[in-house]
């Protein structure tokens, strides 16, 4: 049914409600609606959601508890020098908020998430949990072969959980749906880069976050509606600086932090929040063997992030320069979670590349439950002013 009259406010309100709901009512109801459905939770940043969908499952992004969840039990499992997302994820588990999840996937992000996969096996033995490894070697006959095996093992696990085999045809159909989803996501990002005043970052963030909660078919509808509604509304244009935000691919910043950056005078024109929505940079082919196609897309056509190895030293960090150029940004904000090894170890290398390209940058750290936004606002505001005052016209 066409809902072209839906306003951005209505869409955003729906996304906000999904975002706020740490009992995951949508996923519970989705699962209960049809017998035999499964819900597959996954941590950031990447899992092949097409496989989950083809197995009749709902992929559910588990991105910690944000600033809404009081972490009590989760803190008892982690030392003070470990980031926040694993402790709030454990809190979600121990408070039965994830008790409907059939399978939990822990992608290859860092040592903390890797070890959490083993903790989950011990703490929640009834859940099928799996560390999902991806190759750091990108040759088809080396890393590709390894990854095809990994994908097939995941396929078997999902078939076991759902009680039905995952056919090639079902997988092709799922790939087609996710191709459509990624194309729409890219369109939203391109729209925001063209007219950031028409698509505030907090709205885009919530819209993308909804994509990790609702079924892909529904998310595709939401994205279409948003594009139509956002283009139709006229919003005031501010004299903001245009920035790319990077480093936030795993533990997410509080929504207020994203709002604060924009309120401080920066339009976010690109970011790496929830990379899974844009992991493959163009369509995955539908012809041929779908598992091989998924593997090839990972090896040759996926986004860059600090948890991935860059084999070519000449290309190190250039993805960020390209993001700046593509989105016509004027600077980069490194916003990384405290104690995030991949983001913080990567940062000096990226900063060197940006400096070589005369791209200004600032850096700060956050936690998913950071409450004090004044320092962020001051830093981002000063950065925006400095861009306006000192950058070349």
């Amino acid at each position, binding site marked *: 049914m066409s809902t072209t009259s839906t306003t951005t406010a209505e869409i955003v309100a729906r996304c906000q409600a999904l975002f706020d709901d740490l009992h995951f009512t949508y996923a519970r109801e989705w699962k209960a609606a049809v017998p035999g459905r499964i819900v597959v939770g996954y941590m950031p940043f990447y899992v092949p959601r097409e496989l989950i969908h083809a197995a009749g499952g709902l992929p559910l992004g588990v991105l910690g508890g944000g600033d809404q969840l009081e972490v009590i039990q989760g803190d*008892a*499992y*982690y*030392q003070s*020098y*470990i980031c926040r997302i*694993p402790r709030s994820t454990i809190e979600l588990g121990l408070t039965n908020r994830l008790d409907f999840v059939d399978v939990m996937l*822990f992608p*290859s*992000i*860092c*040592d*903390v998430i*890797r*070890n*959490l*996969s*083993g*903790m989950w*096996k*011990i*703490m929640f033995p009834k859940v099928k949990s*799996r*560390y*999902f*490894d991806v*190759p*750091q*070697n990108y*040759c088809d*006959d*080396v*890393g590709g*072969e*390894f990854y095809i*095996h*990994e994908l097939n*093992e995941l396929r078997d696990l999902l078939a076991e959980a759902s009680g039905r085999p995952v056919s090639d045809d079902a997988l092709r159909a799922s790939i087609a749906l996710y191709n459509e989803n990624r194309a729409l996501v890219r369109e939203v990002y391109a729209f925001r880069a063209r007219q950031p005043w028409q698509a505030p970052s907090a709205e885009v963030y919530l819209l993308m976050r909804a994509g990790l909660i609702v079924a892909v078919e529904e998310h595709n509808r939401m994205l279409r509606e948003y594009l139509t509604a956002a283009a139709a509304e006229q919003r005031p244009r501010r004299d903001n600086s245009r920035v790319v935000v990077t480093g936030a691919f795993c533990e997410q910043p509080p929504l207020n932090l994203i709002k604060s950056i924009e309120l401080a005078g920066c339009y976010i024109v690109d970011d790496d929040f929830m990379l899974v929505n844009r992991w493959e940079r163009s369509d995955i082919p539908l012809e041929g063997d779908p598992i091989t196609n998924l593997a090839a897309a990972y090896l040759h056509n996926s986004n860059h992030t*600090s*948890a991935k*190895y*860059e*084999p070519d*030293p000449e290309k*190190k960090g250039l993805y960020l320069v390209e993001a700046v150029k593509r989105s016509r940004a004027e600077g980069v904000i490194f916003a990384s979670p*405290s*104690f*995030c*090894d*991949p983001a*913080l*170890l*990567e*940062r*000096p*290398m990226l*900063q*060197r590349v940006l400096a070589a390209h005369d791209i200004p940058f600032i850096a700060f*750290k956050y936690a998913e439950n950071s409450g004090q936004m004044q320092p962020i606002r001051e830093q981002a505001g000063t950065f925006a002013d400095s861009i306006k005052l000192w950058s070349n016209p």
Partner: protein
Amino acid sequence: MTNRDAPQVIKDSSMLKQKEMIAGNYAKLEAAPATGQKVVSTFVPGNLNELIMCFDMLNNLPEINALQNGMRKRTGAYIMEAEKRGHSEDVCTYVKADLGMIAKGNLGPDGQKLPDPDLLLLSYTGCFTFMKWFELLRDHYKCETAMLHVPYQGDGKITPNMIAYVVKQLKEEVIPKLEKISGVKFDIDRLREYLARSARAEEDLVWVLETAKSKPSPIDAYFGGVYYIGPIFTAFRGTEDAVEYYRLLRTEITERLARGQGPVTPTGELTEERYRLVVEGPPNWTSFRDFWKMFYEEGAVVVASTYSKVGGLYDLGFRHDPARPLESLAEYCLGCYTNRNLPSRIDLIERYMHEYQADGLVINSIKSCNSFSAGQLLVLREIERRTGKPGAFIESDLVDPRYFSPANIKNRLESYFQMIDQRRAGSRAARAA
């Protein structure tokens, strides 16, 4: 205490042998620009020393440089230098100690300049930080690189797919790069010969570590253990020197065992074994002697440790196998301690608790090392639950002196030893009743 009053440290033949080996390797590294010998920088867990030797190349290990500098109290300044240059206070201090050392002239632990590597060989095992460390070094040195991605044992087992993947990388990525840089053609028989030597040394190492099952234990498997693993974890596995070192060590420990002696400490032999402990996690290097003293002064002996398995886990039966050279290297890389999932790590510690008749588990949680540390509080709970033995949790760092708080650690350990005493008294009372 003045130097005159300090007890004289008695050096066994094996200690002297190891000292000579380490000094010799640093001397070769420092002479490399003059001799023209090619240098590989690589990491300890999953290192491919036998393969490197097939190409007549020298092995330089940044972690070892960092820990050696830590023991010489130099890393504090190096870490601060790296932080001044933009490296976060939150990240691994091995990395920052290495980068700070490079920034300050790249002088090795013996004060001589270390050579730039000809090849960075990343055998990426059990720790993500290695990958970024390696990229940071590549960014600095601009030299040739070879990457070996070793998959993680997420389900607690090594699969044929994992072995095939590692072997293929060895054949298609690592060996061709080593041939190209060294100009030496790969000879698999030479590799077999080195692997056979590795297996001999591994046999003796396991024998030595397992003597700690005796009461009293003739060794300390953590503070002493870090010396015992030195040659086999670093630039010497596969050499005749390593075979000789472990033969000497085995002979010495055989004698100690026969005489019913306790372990050697920096102040002499430990004569009364009051507590038998298993330790999880790496030691602190900047205050290594002080840390050790907190244990031996109380009569505490570490009978098994997980850190002594980080560069290879041999006591479950793995040996490098000359009959399957590349597969064997792959299995070695895949089997290192931190490449095992958390349930496997807990099972191993539980096994140590029983087999070594330990009184408890001490976890030294290292701020820098998420690979070890993330999940250790669950490890503690599980071990206490499964064994009924008390655990202690202390925090420090590898090479950052700012994170070693001696008073806090000593207090915790003293309370812990009292707790063990109380449990023992309780058990005796229960038996008598």
